[in-house]
């Protein structure tokens, strides 16, 4: 290590390519590459994390799964507030999440979603709150952030991607986009500042379907799709 590198190790020196070394209580994300880019080396506790997603289903929940699975080992609740679809128990279980810790809160309006999210964030009985409130007004954001600071759990809010240009008090904002079967993360904002290069993560094994091979592919070819066509329909071309 050169003398210059040693001098630059001084925490009082801030370099443009680095985020400042800040003390943040955190929960490991389960992805070493991502941990390395986050202040506190993990998802922050007691602070909102805003994840911006175009369409639900690109792997955004698998990104959270290792942390959720870890948190489900203690006796507090993991809460899903107003999820976009019905959660499927076997899939959550296969990610290692203890289902007896998971609760789902269904709401009828955006106002109810915000209320329930705030209530859960504030509670010390919840180790993680993941909410889908849709676009959130600035005032509501502040309330959520205050509640997250009080509750000290993992606090994740999913926002539509068009909100990326709008201000948000969440100390950590990450935009997620699909990259084939992987997930690309653009860190828009983090504590300590600094620009981070986009990350592309493999958020878990690709959904393979066990049990398929023994039946054989030909036997189950969807008949209406191949009639009148000798070639395999384009939908069967694997992009993987």
């Amino acid at each position: 290590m050169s003398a210059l590198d040693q001098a630059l190790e001084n925490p009082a020196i801030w370099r443009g390519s680095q985020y400042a070394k800040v003390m943040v209580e955190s929960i490991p994300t389960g992805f070493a590459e991502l941990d390395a880019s986050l202040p506190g080396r993990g998802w922050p506790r007691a602070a909102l994390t805003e994840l911006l997603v175009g369409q639900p289903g690109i792997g955004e929940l698998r990104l959270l799964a290792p942390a959720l699975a870890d948190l489900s080992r203690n006796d507090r609740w993991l809460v899903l507030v107003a999820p976009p679809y019905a959660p499927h128990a076997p899939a959550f279980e296969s990610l290692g999440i203890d289902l007896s810790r998971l609760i789902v809160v269904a709401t009828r309006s955006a106002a109810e979603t915000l209320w329930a999210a705030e209530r859960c964030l504030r509670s010390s009985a919840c180790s993680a709150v993941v909410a889908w409130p849709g676009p959130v007004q600035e005032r509501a954001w502040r309330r959520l952030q205050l509640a997250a600071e009080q509750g000290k759990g993992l606090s994740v809010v999913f926002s539509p991607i068009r909100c990326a240009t709008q201000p948000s008090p969440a100390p950590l904002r990450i935009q997620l986009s699909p990259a084939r079967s992987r997930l690309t993360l653009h860190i828009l904002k983090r504590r300590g500042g600094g620009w981070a290069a986009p990350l592309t993560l493999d958020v878990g094994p690709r959904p393979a379907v066990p049990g398929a091979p023994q039946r054989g592919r030909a036997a189950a070819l969807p008949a209406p799709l191949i009639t009148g066509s000798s070639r395999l329909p384009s939908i069967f071309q694997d992009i993987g």
Partner: protein
Amino acid sequence: MSIMLWSCLHFPDLSLQLLMRAASIRMPMIISSGGNRPLVLSCNSIARKAGVNAGMSLSAAIALCPDLQAHARDASAERSAMERIAGWAGQFTPVVSLDGPDSVLLEIAGSLALFSGLHALPVRMSAGLAELGYTAAIATAPTPSAARLLARAGMSVAIDESARLQRVLRNLPLALLDQPEPVIQALDFMGVRTVGACLELPREGLARRFGQGLLDELDRALGHLPDPRQPYRPPAHYHARLVLPAPVEPLLFVAHRLLVELSGHLRMQGSGLTRLELTLHHAKRAATLVQIGCSTPTRDPRRMLRLLRERLAHLELPADVEAIQIDGKESRPLASHDLSLFPEDILPEEERWSIIDHLRARLGAEAVYGITCHADHRPERASRPCEPGTASRQTRQERRPLWLLDPPHRLREQEDRLLLEAPLVLHSGPERIEGGWWDGAGVTRDYFVASDDQGRQLWIYRERRGGRGWFLQGIFG
């Protein structure tokens, strides 16, 4: 025998206090007597400032202060209020006794260590009473009679040695004694006005002239005679009714006062509530009933209040509320957290469930649920809502989508492509799932993993029976 120490909680102007504790704003209030020419029996400080005095006629008082709230005395309400205070006080000591119409006695010698001492305990009781909406003089002395005399004199003192007690008692006016009016008057006529002056007189003459009762009362106060007290046993279920002085009182404010009282009552019993009933009494209509359930027993008044607030926020009252009533309907044993070893490490069960109760009170019981795996091959039946906290049986570890669409969304077929919005690309499959022939909802499906142009990974299937076609059922999330 170890020394006993008694605290007396004395409530001056109890009838007026009952009215004032149900009022959230300060307003002029008086208690008036009945009869053809009602008199003012007592008045609060606001009424006094307007010129109202005890003893003047009601009509004169109203002339001085037109917005006066005048109420008659309600002896039975006073009695049950004292009983509830005694029940509440049971959190400080197991020996609580009612004393006269407006005092409660507590034997506290055994509780001092727990409540950090002779001077801290009365402060704590006084703060607790303020939360209930009461003001009391709290005096502590080695005998119950002495404690009562000191409290009646309005002296908030704590005396634990008899020499000092003697000194203090001697200066008290005789009028505080429980003696008939003529006795006190006769002594006053003789120039005997203090306890000390009375004790100077020859005992035989005093007994001959005023009866043994006077001497006995003084002897009990000084500890020369035994003074056993009947302990108060609270009823198993808490029941309280509070008449509102004005029909516009904020209900939660009043309910809070009762819930704090209920909490002390539960602490005495070592139990927590699982069901609570709030009854709102109206003038001419049937009462409105609000029921609150708790998944785990609780005696935290804030938690109960939070649940009530949610319910009341969505309640339309048919008329003004004249009185509110709270009944503890079901209770279960609840251990004390005060003695747990690492209170901050362990999440109390109560806290764990209060969030569920609160969410349910606002959003409805069905809106908050857990999910559990069910042994069924049909995906739509493999996951079921359940009570939060239900342990799930481990099932097969197949890769399944995190989200399920219910009902499945039918995909469009165009020439040789499957369309959601844009064409889908298949990655793997098929996986044949068959099942349900036994319950009439049978399926035979071939499942594929596909992706769309937005990068979503989808779980789609082709129905091979009945209304054939392609459907989107899951999103891998």
